[in-house]
């Protein structure tokens, strides 16, 4: 799920950036540092939308670096257990398949794939129903439900299922 929240970070700036463009330099450094990262607590930071407040800078002893506490607004993405997402399949093997929903990777193991879908190995391994009507392979889009998340300090990984109603392949890449 996406959230729009306010986060705070202490940015260290080298004196060469001081001057007229101090604030702009600070903001661009923040964006470069933070966008695309993941914290276990808030999830993946997708984009910084605005700066709320920049505090007074503190000169560090011994070096000339200055630390600014910056409050900024950003869009974050955090998956939750029970959430339903669309994802794109990236790898298929006989233990299940891996899919990605934006920055987060989800694994669907084969016992959470409906029983009528069989694994077929080959140069394009896939899961197919017995009558061949539904196929899951690389780059297919699937709707899945998250049944568990594993949250490390800087990483989030999920387990999903497509065994429930209304889950499964949305879009077959071969027909596109």
């Amino acid at each position, binding site marked *: 799920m996406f959230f729009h929240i306010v986060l705070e970070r202490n940015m260290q700036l080298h004196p060469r950036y001081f001057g007229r463009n101090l604030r702009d330099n600070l903001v661009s450094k923040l964006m470069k540092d933070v966008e695309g990262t993941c914290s276990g607590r808030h999830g993946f930071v997708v984009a910084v939308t605005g700066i709320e407040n920049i505090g007074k800078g503190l000169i560090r002893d011994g070096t000339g670096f200055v630390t600014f506490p910056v409050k900024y607004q950003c869009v974050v993405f955090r998956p939750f257990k029970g959430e339903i997402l669309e994802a794109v399949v990236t790898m298929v093997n*006989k233990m299940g398949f891996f899919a990605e929903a934006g920055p987060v990777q989800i*694994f669907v193991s084969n*016992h959470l794939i409906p029983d009528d879908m069989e694994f077929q190995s080959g140069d394009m391994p896939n899961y197919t129903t017995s009558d061949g009507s539904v196929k899951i392979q690389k780059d297919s889009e699937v709707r899945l439900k998250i049944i568990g998340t594993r949250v490390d300090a800087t990483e989030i990984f999920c*387990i999903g299922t497509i065994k429930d109603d209304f889950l499964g392949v949305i879009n077959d890449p071969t027909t596109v």
Partner: protein
Amino acid sequence: MIEPYNKLVKLAARAFYDDLTSKGDNQPKTGRSDNRGIAVVVLDALTRRQWVREEDLAKDLKLHTKQLRRTLRFFEEEKIITRDHRRETAKGAKIYSAAVAATADATTGKEGEEKVKLHTHSYCCLDYAQIYDVVRYRLHRMKHKLKDELENKNTIQQYICPNCGKRYTAFDAPRLLSRNGEDFDCESCDGKLDVESDKLAAQEGGDGDGDENARRRRREKLKDMLQKMEVQLKPLIDQLGRVKDLPVPEFGSLQAWEARASAAGRAANGDNAGDSKSHLGYNGAPMPYSGDTKVVVDFNGTEGKGEGVKSETDSTSLKVLPPWMITSGMNLTKEQRGEVKQETKMDGTSTSTAAQYTDEKKSTIGHDDKNIQDEYIKAYYAALLKKQHELEEAAKNPQDANAADDPSSSTSIRKVGDKYKREEDDDGTEWEEAPARADAPAEDDEDDIDWEEG
């Protein structure tokens, strides 16, 4: 206080361990030599003992020591018993025997050689606190597993390495991906991981009806299992509820228990020593002796108030208020004053008032009464009750609220026999205090106890 816990242990043993055999894995199991269920016997035996040496237990149960040890080891891993292994000489073992003799009726005769060989003796004891927790956890896990399986969708797959036995879950999947991307490799030994199927409802292969029916059948099977489990485990769950608020019986470590038991036993029985045993004594260790009086009897002897009465007789009716709670002016029913006792299970004894008082003190002591005392007390109180009824009919005055603490009347009541005589004296007097006197016997019982325990 230990009885509910013992019952819990017995129920749990029969529920969960009744198919445990003490034979090793590579021994032939014939029909004749199959001893499944021996675990139940062992646990039952342990409920009747406190700390016990394993060799003694084996002898009592007529089991091979090795088989008993295997069973005990299993229970130790289940955290149901605690074990202690000590290197002792034969003399040290005697101290233990003396301690056992103090608490149980065992007559152990370990007159042995006086060699100073150090053997390792193993002792074991039930660990009640842990048993309570272990049983609850087990039930919780069972229910959880069935419920998860019932929902059928949200189980996280587990993987196991066939070479080194290391376990993984689906959460580790990206780490485990092998180089060819085809399967999962174990991190330590690089073996191909196997899927661990933890489905309780077995997959029915080849169902032509399609998986709808199969799924429904599996759900039915699981629901059935869940229901059967609840029904069959109900007595155990009830016992858990009963035991929940009771204090846990605690025996302490082996040393502490030994010291306590032999000291208590010695105190209760004076020093009629088992002579031969005491001669081989340690310096400074408590003298072993053999006696068959138990610690518990001692308390009964000094109080002399009929321990045999079950202390829970009156929990259903109004509570009897002890005299220190009865202040003047309280509007109490007769029952609350502890006067009318009709419904006791013990045949008209009015010892429930006494029982109320001695409840906390005595309930830990078991049922080891001297029967003669019991009989006497029962007869005495039956007579007393009859006398009370006669008095109450005779007394026409309304109940005096100030009937309670009448210290003057209690001073002369010391000996059990005297009360009876006093009753006859007071028959004719029709004072305001007559009801008080009429009430007195019952109250005086309480006062009496008060005095003695004060």
